[in-house]
């Protein structure tokens, strides 16, 4: 079975601006991949090319084996844009019904009820969009993206308008989707969110992938912190495997050891190191 999303040497130019410079990225079946990067790094452009909203200048992007933007590719994905809106006069149920018809979903009322329950909007089934809070509309957007049980879910900043409870709802939802084998490409500024739910993370800067790997791989060891009778000091350039040796050496030199802590960088630190403090 082809990967849910396979991007090879992808380039996008807007006039003289190179938004993407040869990006390679794969979202495997059932994998949850996070995209990180400062504003203008090319994250949204990448997601939009995958969704068929923007045409690539060069390279290849395939959704479930089909060229991005083609009908089979669009039939295989669900998409939540960073900035989106539904007509204010539609109710939540009508929005989902419209997208069911557009997606060719045969799920009917049962699917709509299930999706609304999934995003905690069952009570708002008949509420019009213009009467919803930003967070409710955002959750409705996620439900809309899930119409027709897509193989690949493209989420561009899905929690930007949500409060902490709403973010937790989305996080749990993403974990549930992963359990069901749905592949997700998640573009988010919230590192903690990415760290908690993603299997794989790619950090973009200036249209290039500057770091990629699992959150654990990206969280590099930074050394070991040793607490002795002389105080606390950090030994850099060592890992967990070096701990017995460090303790033995300290004891041999007559110090009393009270505690040892292996230091690892957080994803945030790795991210800041990768982007060099760039914000836009």
């Amino acid at each position, binding site marked *: 079975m082809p990967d849910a999303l396979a991007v090879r040497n992808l380039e996008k130019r807007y006039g003289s601006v190179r938004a993407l410079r040869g990006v390679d990225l794969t979202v495997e079946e059932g994998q949850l991949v996070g995209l990180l990067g400062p504003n203008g790094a090319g994250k949204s452009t990448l997601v939009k090319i995958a969704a068929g909203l923007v045409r690539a200048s060069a390279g290849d992007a395939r959704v479930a084996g089909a060229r991005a933007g083609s009908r089979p590719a669009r039939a295989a994905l669900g998409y939540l844009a960073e900035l989106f809106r*539904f007509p204010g006069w539609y109710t939540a149920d009508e929005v989902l019904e419209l997208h069911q*018809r557009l997606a060719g979903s045969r799920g009917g009322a049962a699917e709509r009820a299930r999706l609304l329950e999934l995003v905690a909007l069952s009570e708002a089934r008949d509420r019009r969009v213009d009467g919803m809070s930003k967070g409710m509309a955002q959750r409705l*957007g996620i439900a809309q993206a899930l119409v027709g049980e897509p193989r690949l879910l493209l989420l561009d900043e899905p929690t930007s308008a949500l409060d902490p409870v709403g973010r937790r709802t989305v996080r749990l939802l993403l974990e549930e989707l992963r359990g069901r084998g749905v592949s997700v490409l998640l573009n988010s500024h919230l590192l903690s969110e990415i760290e908690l739910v993603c299997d794989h993370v790619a950090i973009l800067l200036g249209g290039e992938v500057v770091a990629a790997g699992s959150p654990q791989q990206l969280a590099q060891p930074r050394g070991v912190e040793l607490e002795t009778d002389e105080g606390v000091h950090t030994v850099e350039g060592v890992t967990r495997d070096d701990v017995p040796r460090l303790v033995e050496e300290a004891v041999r030199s007559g110090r009393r050891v009270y505690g040892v802590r292996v230091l690892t960088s957080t994803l945030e630190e790795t991210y800041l190191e990768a982007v060099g403090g760039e914000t836009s």
Partner: protein
Amino acid sequence: MSSVAAIVEYGFREAVRRKMFAVVLVLTVLFLFLFWLANHFVFAQLDQITPPADVHVDTRTFAGAFLTGLAMFATLFLGVVLAVFLTLGVVGGDAERGLLQPLVVRPVGRATLLLARFAGAAGVCSLYVLAVYFASMLITGLTGHWWPGNVVGPGVELALGVIIVVALSLLGSVVLTSTANGIAIFMLFGAGLVAGLLGSIGHALNSHAVKSASTVTSYALPFEGLYQDALRLITQDTTGLTAFVLQLGPFGGGYVHGWTIRVWAVVYLVLALAAAIGAFSRRNL
């Protein structure tokens, strides 16, 4: 087919939900009332009206045709206003507001999406134009006991004219911002009005050059050509009387007419839609 119907329905609901639609309806009621008032006074004082020397028809026919012609211009204008406000932001405006992207990523396809939006807007506008046309015709018929020689044709041509404006506005919405598109379409409509005026001037001065400029412009903007043909149709079959070219001064006259303009209008519509689809399929959202 369900997805196409869904988009048509989406566009239709959007059209009738807009406040603009209510404004146009209020303006229409006001126009029809004033039009009835004009008919009432004109036909009540028919003996005080003298047709121009070169118009060889009876006074009632002249007055009835003149009033119907003016009503047709107002109908076209109101139809164009409705068409522009329903479609000026279908692509650019909706994309800017984030309404379009969730629809475009669905398997329905951009061409189908645009054609379905066209069908929705064209349906609303043509129904509106036909309703106003027949209402004004009824007012003149019942008040002044005068009926056009061709009852259906002029209404259909006015509706087709407005449908062309819908297509042009959709094309504009792909390449322009909503505001720029609205201005551009109203300027095109104004240019059509000028073409009609040029026709009147050209015939008054018997200037071949001015008449040619008017004809070329009417073909370049076929909604104007169709309007002129529709003006011709309301008098061409008047029983027992010689048909005459209705001249409404600044509102043009029935100078361009016949099957050439009708066929060209359909070809023009197809070309405008094809251009809109081509531009939309290449546009980044």
